[in-house]
């Protein structure tokens, strides 16, 4: 166990946890978008910044990736942090103006209308879908491609891929609702499984049939837990 100070409270944390984890464990809420408990932290949305005291003065760090150190002093709601988060929220709102989660977040930060407009696409490139696909599902069907303004989430070579298993974990995990099933399907070469469905019945009697001598055994197998 290590101990650090967050917002004036002395808190204890497991070695190896991040400042964000240490804070949440003690009920100190830090807003996040690209953080997910089941995934490795990534540090892309910069909403979780906190002010950390360093020998060279206060400094902003992304709390989701910054390790909690013994004796560290962090502020999660200082003026410096708030200013940074407001700017981040404004840029996020500009990037994803239709996303409900972003709108709520921006309102909470006091941002009404972004001063710039960036795109109509609600993807904020937080990489949650890409990481979930790799780490939870293990399919690695999508990745972040290109750089700068043209950066986007895409399957390899931007063509349909068989790696996608259509589990829609990316749809569920997307914080802005930017991914839809159609996107998932178009990212996958959909196969029309050429199998004709035929109603099949028991060969012996033409119906679903239960042999009388098996009734007792079946009753046992259907009767629930043995007590």
């Amino acid at each position, binding site marked *: 166990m290590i101990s650090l100070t967050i917002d004036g409270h002395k808190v204890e944390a497991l070695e*190896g946890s991040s400042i964000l984890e240490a804070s949440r464990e003690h009920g100190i*809420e830090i807003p996040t978008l690209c953080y997910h*408990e089941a995934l490795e932290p990534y540090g892309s949305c910069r909403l979780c910044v906190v002010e950390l005291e360093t020998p060279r003065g206060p400094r902003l760090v992304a709390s989701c990736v910054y390790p909690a150190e013994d004796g560290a002093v962090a502020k999660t709601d200082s003026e410096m942090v708030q200013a940074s988060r407001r700017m981040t929220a404004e840029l996020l709102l500009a990037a994803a103006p239709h996303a409900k989660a972003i709108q709520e977040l921006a309102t909470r930060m006091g941002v009404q209308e972004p001063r710039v407009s960036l795109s109509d696409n609600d993807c904020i490139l937080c990489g949650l879908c890409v990481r979930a696909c790799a780490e*939870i599902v293990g399919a690695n069907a999508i990745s972040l491609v290109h750089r700068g303004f043209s950066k986007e989430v895409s399957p390899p070579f931007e063509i349909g891929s068989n790696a996608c298993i259509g589990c829609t974990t990316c749809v569920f995990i997307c914080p802005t609702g930017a991914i839809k099933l159609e996107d998932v399907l178009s990212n996958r070469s959909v196969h029309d499984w050429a199998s004709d469905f035929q109603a099949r019945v028991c060969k012996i009697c033409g119906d679903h049939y239960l042999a009388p001598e098996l*009734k007792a055994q079946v009753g046992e197998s259907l009767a629930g837990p043995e007590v």
Partner: protein
Amino acid sequence: MVTEGKPKIGVFLCECGREISDTVELSTLGQGVAEMPGVVLSQRQAYCCSKVGLHEIRQAIEKHGLDRVVVAGCTPRTHGPLFEKALEEAGLRPSCLEVVNVREQCAWVHVDDPEGATEKAMDLTRMGVAKAAIMGLRTSIQVDVTPAALVIGGGTAGLTAAATVAARGFPVMLVEKEPELGGQVARLHTLYPRGESASEFIKKRIRSVEGQEHIRILTGSTVTDISGPIGDYQVTVARDGKILEFHVGTVIVATGARESEPSDEFRQDGVRVMTQSELEQALPENEVNAGHVVTMVYEPDPEAYSTVAAATALKNSLLLKRRHPEAAVSLIFNDLSSDLSAAMMEEARALGVRFYSYDGRRAPRLANKAVEVFDRLRGEAATIPAEVLVLAMPLVPHDDAMSISSMLSVPVDKHGFFLEPNVRLRPGSFLPTGIFVCGSAHYPVSANESVFQGYRAAARALRHLSAGTLASQGPGAQVRESLCVGCGTCVESCPFGAISMVPGRGMLSVSKIDASLCKGCGNCSVVCPAKAIVMETSSDKELIAQIDAALAARTDGRPRVLALLCEWSGYAAADLAGAERRQYPANVRIIRVGCAARFDPYLVLWAFLKGADGVLLGGCDPGMCHYIEGNRWAAKRIETLHHMLKGAGFDSRRLSLQWLKPDDGAQFVEVVREFVDEIEYLGPTILVDTGQSLGASPQGQLLPSGQSV
């Protein structure tokens, strides 16, 4: 599958910050949980999924000797693997975990109804505990991969794949049915789009496999049988009347395609009709000497459009015009794909090749040594004189593709091309088959694309071969041989061909399930008339325990609706509805199943007998089933069950099968609302559980008289 002694279940209640504890009264839940049978520990945590939370779960497992863990928190779809890992670190099997989804199914969706949410959370946790107490533990399958590969087809793709695999030191058997290697490209003159010589191209590839120490080339041979388990296929090849047998770990299908034959409608006196490949063979000898040549992309079926045929027609029109500038060359096509080489199109236009685009519904016809075509671009009919008609015929699979398809159980599409044997399941939950398709066996591709596909298939095969062993923890089905009556119904029901009949005791044969092929849809366990097939996870027993637990305590007096949801659609939709905070009535209890194929009529009847007022089933949209056709089986079964219920005097409106989309939380909420409204309108059922078990009631008389009043 009951564990020895009494199970020791630890239940961890997650607050999820305040996401869950704000709506669900966790202290009430904790008290209730502590009294549930088998529970030795009920612990509340701020975040079960945090480092501290996982640490405490691990500690509790050691301290209390837990052998089952129930986490009442969020969706298992995202957080399940996290807890499974923690269990593994504490020395438990990952399958000892049950995650109860109280966040997405209670806290987030019943914000205005904290009491209902708490009661539902209690029921869901009771269901989880009841399931955990009797939960079957998944066994793992391990198979060795024979370090050798079989490549069927010695065309461009097959040659490339064979050379690539052999270069890594794995022995390769290259089987070609023709006496010579080379495939379709060997019959071409030049290649699209750069015009390199086809013979040079294919000779280079043939040289790369000839004399290679790891490659054995079997020309003039056909594969007659492929059998055996995944990882160790036994291959039989017929060559000159002799039979060869060998074992391989992976199979690359590169059987290619051929030009289809022109039909008789083009046979006419005085007009020479040839296919593109005939033209390519004739070109070097300067045989085609005609004043009027028409090349035509022939598409009897618009779906059969292939870029390859169009590209070949374009390439050859250009070649003809270059060789014979004086000849009038026309190119007739339905639709030229935009990915054709723009440079070639421009050159062809500049040299004077005339382009005609016809409407697919008004096919051109040949009459009086001329092609009559309605030109879509000019909007008028045109008559183009033709001495030679060169047809770009659609490429079709070879005739033996079907036999290879059935040998490998690789499906083909309606044109007969192979589909990649890749079923959309969570990777790791089943064994990869090690069968790969490349080149035109897939769909018509150009020579260059064939090379790429050959490399790709080889890369995948190499990954398979170098792995050495394959292991998976499949949620498979198992046969209880003592119950099997040998009817064979399950064999037909398995969409993956995993079941076969083997000789059993006495005169009966018994069914045997190949664990490496079983994907765990559970269709066989439903069709089995003797209930001899049991699923390792989500067995009938577990589902029945969950149904019982869901209906055990009813205090609110409202009708109780049970929802069995396929984890790929309905369950995902319920999760999404939660994430979007869409509210719906709290008297729905959700049970997760692997596939709609598991919607067993017996389970539905059981639920009704245990007092469910309505049963909602949610499966994937038709055509979207992850297990090929589980939802169609379900539709059929539930339709029959509807009739039976009606016949028994039971209101069949209480049973509803819905197709749900995993990305549509709104649709899910709407379906649930409508169904609950309907059930509330109908009121509670008057079925009383007489204690008589359903299995003991004779089939055909589903509701024994006296139970429905």
